[in-house]
């Protein structure tokens, strides 16, 4: 613990980085660990010398050859990349968005209505424990097309953090806030959009952020069965053909994808929740 630096001092430092003076220094402060880890990995992998754990340089060369050595007209993407990346990312984002809408909507309803949550909670808690792979037979029957089924798998897999956190947030709106809304006779819509949603927003955002990287994972899972393209399919294919550097490449691609998505998400969150952050800093 940094007992020596005063809290006020820390705040000053923080607001400094938040407030525009980013640039090189900020990047340095945030990223210095990455090269360190990469070097350690490279050394470790070279020492271990196992085909299953290739060093990063091998992986990167492989990735370049496989996906990024294409023609300039395709943004240097190869055919394999063009065929597999966009469909995957599209499904991921669509699935996450659908889960977000359903999760927040249902979560608010359950968080605010005791009766509804009484009826539905056990079913949801039950459903939450069922692994998506076990449901694929059901999904195959319910959703005809491949994309539909993959979307269903993603939505089913990522909705829970959003739902559970939203319920938590909506249920625990500060009592005086809720009372204020009630005595001023705010309508349902206003109560929802002006009180409950903003009050629950910090928790909803925690759920959305969890779900975003879960969506990357579920995208892969959904493509392991019945898909003919996508990153997951690619991983399965590489694994099956013992192209391990290729598999690692796909995994690194997943990581980068998840990182970029998370960074964009935090960017949005910082704006939407700026009141929260600032209210927490200044008392």
């Amino acid at each position: 613990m940094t007992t020596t630096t005063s809290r006020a001092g820390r705040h000053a430092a923080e607001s400094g980085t938040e407030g525009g003076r980013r640039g090189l220094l900020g990047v340095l402060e945030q990223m210095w660990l990455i090269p360190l880890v990469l070097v350690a990995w490279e050394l470790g992998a070279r020492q271990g010398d196992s085909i299953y754990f290739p060093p990063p340089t091998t992986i990167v060369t492989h990735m370049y050859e496989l996906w990024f050595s294409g023609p300039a007209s395709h943004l240097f993407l190869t055919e394999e990349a063009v065929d597999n990346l966009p469909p995957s990312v599209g499904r991921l984002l669509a699935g996450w968005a659908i889960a977000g809408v359903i999760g927040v909507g249902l979560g608010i309803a359950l968080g605010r209505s005791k009766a509804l949550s009484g009826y539905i909670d056990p079913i949801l808690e039950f459903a939450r424990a069922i692994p998506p792979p076990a449901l694929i037979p059901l999904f195959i029957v319910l959703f005809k097309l491949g994309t539909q089924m993959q979307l269903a798998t993603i939505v089913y897999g990522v909705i829970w953090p959003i739902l559970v956190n939203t319920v938590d947030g909506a249920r625990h709106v500060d009592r005086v806030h809720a009372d204020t809304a009630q005595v001023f006779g705010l309508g349902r819509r206003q109560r929802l959009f002006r009180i409950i949603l903003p009050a629950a927003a910090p928790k909803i955002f925690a759920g959305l952020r969890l779900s975003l990287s879960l969506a990357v994972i579920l995208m892969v899972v959904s493509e392991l069965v019945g898909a003919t393209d996508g990153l997951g399919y690619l991983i399965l294919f590489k694994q099956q053909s013992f192209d391990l550097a290729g598999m690692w490449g796909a995994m690194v691609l997943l990581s980068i994808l998840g990182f970029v998505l998370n960074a964009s998400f935090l960017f949005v969150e910082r704006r939407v929740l700026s009141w929260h952050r600032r209210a927490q800093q200044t008392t």
Partner: protein
Amino acid sequence: MLDVVNLSHTYGKGPSAHQALGGIDLNVAEGELVCVVGPSGCGKSTLLRSIAGLIKPTAGQIRIRDVAVSDTPGDLAVVFQDYSRSLFPWMTVGDNVALPLRRRGGDRAARRAAAADALEEVGLAAAATKYPWELSGGMQQRVAIARALAYRPSLLLMDEPFGSVDAQTREDLEDLVLKVRELHRMTVLLITHDIDESVYLGDRVIVLKKSPATVVGELSVKLPFPRDQIATRELPAFVHLRAEVGRLVRGKDPFRPFQA
């Protein structure tokens, strides 16, 4: 307009239960301003929350315009004792004040104007675009008052609304409440622990005693309107009434918590 009949409330159940209200009867006529005074923890806020429909009293009845209410009555505004928690930190001060005005109809611009007017009246014209947590305690309290006044409710409940402001501002706010209720014929129930204030503001003062709260006395304040901070307080009638209320508050069993 407001009738409270034999209202009782007990918090909790079993051995740790605590009876806060023990059969309160009171009524407030249309357009009247009634002040409630009573010792700390006697049950004033509980009474107010019951009238606002925020807690369901364990016994008794609340009638507004002779209709028994169980839920929050319409056309009501409340200034909470916990004013800082009743402002929404995600909205600017202006939005906080304008929010309930939707019920009054009118477009966005009209609502904004009304909110700005109300903020101006409590001396916070410049704070409209700030957030509540950028304000001092007293300023937050004034925002809560501005919100309630801008709403122009027919029934206004205020729970120690001037507890965090300086004497000068307090006087101004008191006069503001008198002015607004005059102008818009509001009915006001105001909780305070300042005996002077209760006499200065009220048409009537109701005194509660503690554990559980019951009404120990009521006084009609027959002081002329408009009231004036200096002139009214100098009236012999005012001084007398103030002493009366003081006696009622101290009561037969002198409230002296410190000599346990």
